[in-house]
């Protein structure tokens, strides 16, 4: 018997029992469909996280003010305001692997930004320095960023994001326009490029930037120099751990923290956050994959069960074939081809179902998915393997039947 004849024989046998074939295929079909959909979802999620990390700026490390404690009682993160723009400048100067630093002052109490008859409350108003676009990897669409001069003299200039521009100027160029913040006139010098929403769903284009000096002296009316955070960009990802260690040592020295004393600052790298997120989604997708594999196992056992029933039902046919000269291996090939055809067909259908499910998830739930060719290939191989593995035992049983006994079977 050649391969083509064996295949035709197998397909014929499967078509003869349509309902049984369909029900047997269901287990594998659902298993493969969920594997494909899960992998697509997992890959989509990790690509989204990756995109968002990249949107934050590459190789970014945040320095946050630490927690004050008195008598063993912690006042919580940010309760001491010890970080200053001088720290930022020192880090940029002393740590060679840090390419640029930007101190960030979150401006409180900015209610409205007014331009003519329009007004808008920005989600995010920050004071920073001239290196901010470089650190955040966030270029300007139009105009220029504010200058060193502006920072030195606390000039009333601002750079705005696309959302603010849209709401205040309805698509007209904001450059050179005057907006009023806390009833003071600010000149718009630049428009940031559109970035979209970030990892926690905030609109990053709803951002207003002013020189940090302007933020402290003019908007807050403060004489202190403390900032909410310092952003560092490290030259390459590989240097991040070393740079973090050097920054820690430098800040220990600058803040006169002796060994054993609690730090008054905290370092956080975006890559760490990213890998934490990636780890969570990896664990999730492994759990889902395990579930899918269990369903494949159950489906495989279903195939084995049906093939055993089929061998018993067709004992007489096997006897006739043996009397006509079929060898054990001919019978083995016939039944094995049947179970492989069954599971492979289920695999192909499951693949189509999984692909359309992930398309549906993307289309209707707006979750990102990414179909992977690898998962498709592995699923097909896997369903083939299931057919061989679970079909082997029934096929071997069929091939070992004694022709005389088999012919006598009622």
């Amino acid at each position, binding site marked *: 018997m050649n391969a083509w004849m064996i295949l035709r024989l197998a397909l014929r046998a499967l078509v003869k029992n349509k309902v049984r074939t369909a029900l047997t295929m269901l287990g594998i079909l659902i298993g493969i469909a969920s594997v494909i959909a899960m992998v697509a979802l997992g890959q989509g999620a990790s690509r989204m996280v990756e995109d968002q990390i990249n949107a934050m700026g590459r190789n970014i490390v945040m320095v946050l003010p630490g927690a004050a404690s008195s008598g063993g009682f912690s006042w919580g993160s940010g309760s001491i305001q010890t970080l200053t723009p001088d720290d930022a400048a020192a880090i940029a100067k002393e740590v060679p692997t840090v390419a640029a630093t930007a101190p960030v002052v979150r401006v409180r109490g900015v209610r409205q930004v007014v331009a003519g008859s329009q007004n808008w409350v920005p989600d995010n108003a920050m004071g920073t320095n001239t290196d901010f676009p470089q650190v955040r990897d966030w270029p300007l669409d139009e105009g220029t960023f504010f200058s060193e001069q502006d920072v030195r003299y606390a000039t009333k200039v601002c750079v705005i994001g696309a959302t603010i521009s849209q709401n205040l100027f309805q698509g007209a160029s904001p450059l050179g326009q005057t907006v009023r913040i806390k009833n003071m006139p600010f000149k718009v010098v630049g428009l940031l490029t559109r970035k979209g929403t970030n990892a926690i769903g905030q609109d990053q284009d709803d951002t207003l930037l002013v020189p940090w000096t302007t933020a402290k002296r003019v908007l807050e009316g403060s004489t202190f120099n403390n900032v909410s955070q310092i952003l560092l960009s490290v030259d390459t990802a590989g240097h991040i751990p070393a740079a973090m260690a050097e920054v820690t040592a430098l800040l220990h020295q600058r803040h006169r923290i002796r060994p054993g004393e609690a730090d008054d600052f905290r370092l956080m790298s975006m890559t760490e956050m990213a890998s934490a997120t990636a780890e969570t989604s990896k664990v999730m997708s492994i759990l889902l994959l395990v579930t899918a594999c269990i369903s494949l196992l159950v489906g495989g056992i279903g195939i084995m069960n049906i093939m055993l029933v089929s061998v018993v039902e067709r004992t007489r046919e096997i006897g006739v074939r043996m009397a006509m000269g079929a060898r*054990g291996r001919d019978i083995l090939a016939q039944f094995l081809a049947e179970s492989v055809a069954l599971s492979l067909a289920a695999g192909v259908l499951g693949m189509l179902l999984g692909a359309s499910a992930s398309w549906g998830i993307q289309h209707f739930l707006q979750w990102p998915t990414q179909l992977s060719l690898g998962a498709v290939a592995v699923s097909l191989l896997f369903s083939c393997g299931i057919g061989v593995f679970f079909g082997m035992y029934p096929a071997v049983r069929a091939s070992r039947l004694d022709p005389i006994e088999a012919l006598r079977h009622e």
Partner: protein
Amino acid sequence: MTPLIRLEGISKTYHLGEVDIRPLQEVTLEIAAGEVVSITGASGSGKTTLMNILGCMDRPSEGSYRLEGREVAHLSPDERARLRNQVFGFVFQSFNLLSRTSALENVELPLMYWRSLPGAERHALALEALRRVGLADRVDHHPNQLSGGQQQRVAIARALVTRPKILLADEPTGNLDSRSEKEIMDLFGQLHAEGITVILVTHNPEIAAVAAHRIRLKDGRVQEDVR
């Protein structure tokens, strides 16, 4: 001249726990090419066992079986399968056609093994075999659409399609009415005339009488062997 089949001291023993069952004991016989042979005997006399051994479905426990002078008593299962495919044709009492399969495909069945024929050639051979048994107009019928006599003729066509030297028939008319029985026996007569050796296992004396060479078994031994 070497006989087509020569059995010498053939015994078959089954071990059932403590008890030994010996359906065949010391059977010695010869069958010449082109003969019609009948094997008769009461049930339990060893007819079926003898036929299974003759048809290479079963192996004897002892003795020698020479097929055209070649010892086949101890061949491997695959070698025996090849002999069943190429030397023997089998006809059973209950026809043993594959259900839900057309007459033509049933007849093609033996051609699927041990040879790689293109589909068209297989069809042509099967069609010719069906024509020989007078069923050229029933090729697409399934067994349940055919009468008993017609089903047995399909089974004979299936046995003939490989052009065997020996046709082994086990109670071929046991399930048929007398008219169909006559048809089938006429067909065997015709095959004999064409030079095929026909071995009939039966308990029907009328059928046994057709054979020129009659073997009668009793309790696993040859009781009578007349030509």
